[in-house]
């Protein structure tokens, strides 16, 4: 599971690659810490290469969302596949995020 964060002028993009299961979530929680400090930024969570997500991964997404709301940032979830969409639907996350 790989997390890559790139920063542009007004944007932070976090690209996830692989399976975000309970075991991988431990590392990923550390990796996304920069996003939690971003204020007034657009945070893009690029899920193009994300194969799988479990509840631990969802928790991380939620944490990012909560912090962004507190800091005036916006969170966009990008390119989730059908499996992950199904999980978002099951958990109601589908309405928590702007999904592109």
């Amino acid at each position, binding site marked *: 599971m790989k997390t890559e964060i790139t920063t542009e002028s007004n944007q932070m993009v976090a690209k996830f690659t692989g399976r975000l299961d309970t075991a991988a979530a431990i590392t990923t929680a550390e990796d996304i810490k920069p996003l939690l400090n971003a204020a007034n930024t657009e945070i893009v969570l690029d899920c193009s290469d994300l194969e799988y997500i*479990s509840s631990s991964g969802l928790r991380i997404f939620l*944490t990012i969302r909560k912090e962004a*709301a507190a800091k005036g940032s916006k969170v966009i979830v990008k390119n989730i596949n059908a499996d992950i969409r199904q999980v978002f639907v099951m*958990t*109601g*996350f589908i309405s*928590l995020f702007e999904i592109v």
Partner: protein
Amino acid sequence: MKLKVKNNDIIHDKSGLWIIIIAAVILEATACIQYFYNRASLRNEAERRAIAELRRAELEIDVVCKQVEMSVQTMALLAERNLQYPDSMFSITCLMVERTPDMVGAAIALKENYYPQYGKWFEAYCGLHTKNLQIGSQTHDYFQSEWFHNGMTIDSCWWCEPYYDNAGAMETLVSCSYPLHNSEGEVIGVALADISLNYLERLSQYLRVYPNSYFSITSSNGTELVPAPDTIPGMKYHIFEEDIDVNGWTIRIIIPDNEIYGELKRIGLLVTIMMILGLLLLVFIMYASARNIMKLLEANKQNQTIESELNIARNIQMAMLPKTFPPYHDCLDLNIYGTIIPAKEVGGDLYDFYISDNKLYFCIGDVSGKGVPASLVMAVTRSLFRTLSAQSKDPAQIIIQMNNAMSEMNEQNMFVTFFLGILDIETGELNYCNAGHNAPILISDTPTALPVLPNLPIGILSGYTFISQTITIQRGNTLFFYTDGLTEAENINKELYGEERMFKTISEWSDTFNAKEQVNAIQQSVAQFVDIAEPSDDLTMLSIRYLPDKSEQTTSNKTGQIVKSQIVMRNDIQQIPTLAEWVESLGIPQMLNMTINLALEEAVTNVMLYAYPDSNGTVLIESLKDKNQITFVISDSGIPFDPTKKGEVDITLAAEDRAIGGLGIHLVRQIMDKIEYERKDDKNILTLTKLF
């Protein structure tokens, strides 16, 4: 000819001897015939020459005699005409002597008292040096001489016997008498001529027919006119003779045998010597070639013996290889096949394996070199493997002992590349040690080379520390071992088969191949590549397949059979990916795979978190699948924890209001059709069911 081949094997060969004898006989007979023919022709030649010369000599003598007779008759004629002049008798005789060659004296002798003035005797004589002598007297009473008497009575020339004249000429003379007649026809006297026989010397130019031949002339009474030299006793002579009609002499030509045959004898000797030498050469050649043939036969025999012994050696070597391959009735977890194709009758490659105590001990090796020396070292290596592997469980230790033992007896500096492995059949753990051998191929999804340390081969350095390695292989994996006879197989263009081709052929194996089919596929590929070229090295291959456990076998559910599976997990979040793999292997319909995986992950994670918060334990997950549904039973022996008791999560809340936790069990409830919890025998038992 006798030739000794072995101590109790003597061969008599008489045919060679007969060849020599017959050749000698033929040669000698030919030479003899030639000799005698030559001899005869030489003799004939000699005879011809002698006779020819004799005739010429006779002719010469004849001529001389005739000349003398003519002279004497002329003298007689003249005398008869001048009888009344007694003085003219002297001049007539002188005339005769002057005119006639070889005449040394001439005389006219008249009968008693013919000239009364001269008295009783009258013999007018003229010699070469004495002239006009009347020599008739008391002392020289010629009336008694034979020549007078015969001359008077015989009416032709009468030749007397040669005699030595010691009164006058001091040489051998012969005289010729002729009667004188008066006018009435009465015989009144004799005309006489003395002829020197010196002229006979002239004949020697004719009569010396050979350089060392002699001649003699004898009168009819045996008086020697030309004496023959004394013959040497013991020598042989050929004598040719001719009688001269005119005076009864005999001319002999005496030729020593040597003169005639000397050349022939010399040549004959030379030929005989050459013949003998030739025969000796023949004998020598025959003897030498017979010995050569014996040597060849012996070598051939030895070759055949060696060949048949090599065949036996090969059979012994092949018998050292394992004859049966698993699976056995008491070991169904392995499928093995091995083969060695030797380049010569005997080779230096080996492989071996045996199962003991639920472990597979196996090895593959390659002795440096080929042929009988390599095969001997191979046999030693194999027995060391068998003996030492029974005593130790560590591959490195076994090889260290093998190495020390073999380095000590290694005068020929032969070494063995070697791979030794011990596979725990239950767990799939492979302990191995590679001593300089080709890295084996591990085939799970794709063929890759097994990681091997660069230990030295066996037999190079006594006391070397070999290091072993461990890897765990999975059921369904194959281990493929080979020697460099495979990768270094050459075709006629001197190209090598190489690792690439080997990997390619391995990746083309069908999944249904058993070990034998796998090995055969490689063998065919190599055979095609090598084609008509001569194999340069032994080709050895060993394939070990670690078969899936029959009781755990999972197949797709197309036939609707009931399939059971299980997995045991430790209390470790890091095992979650293993869980995912196990779910993958259950053959669940593809579209449900992710959600069932997710549900199980959430359930198991909760068990790990809540049932074993701070202790080690295991979680057992059993699955039972039929064509309608799949059921998972998750059991643990942790503290009592009932996930179904957890309250529902409100997923309609806004992000700010959502609780961080609780999603896990929510997902399980969402995904699974049935969730049941039971606490039984101190165990939490959670049953999840998903209908298809």
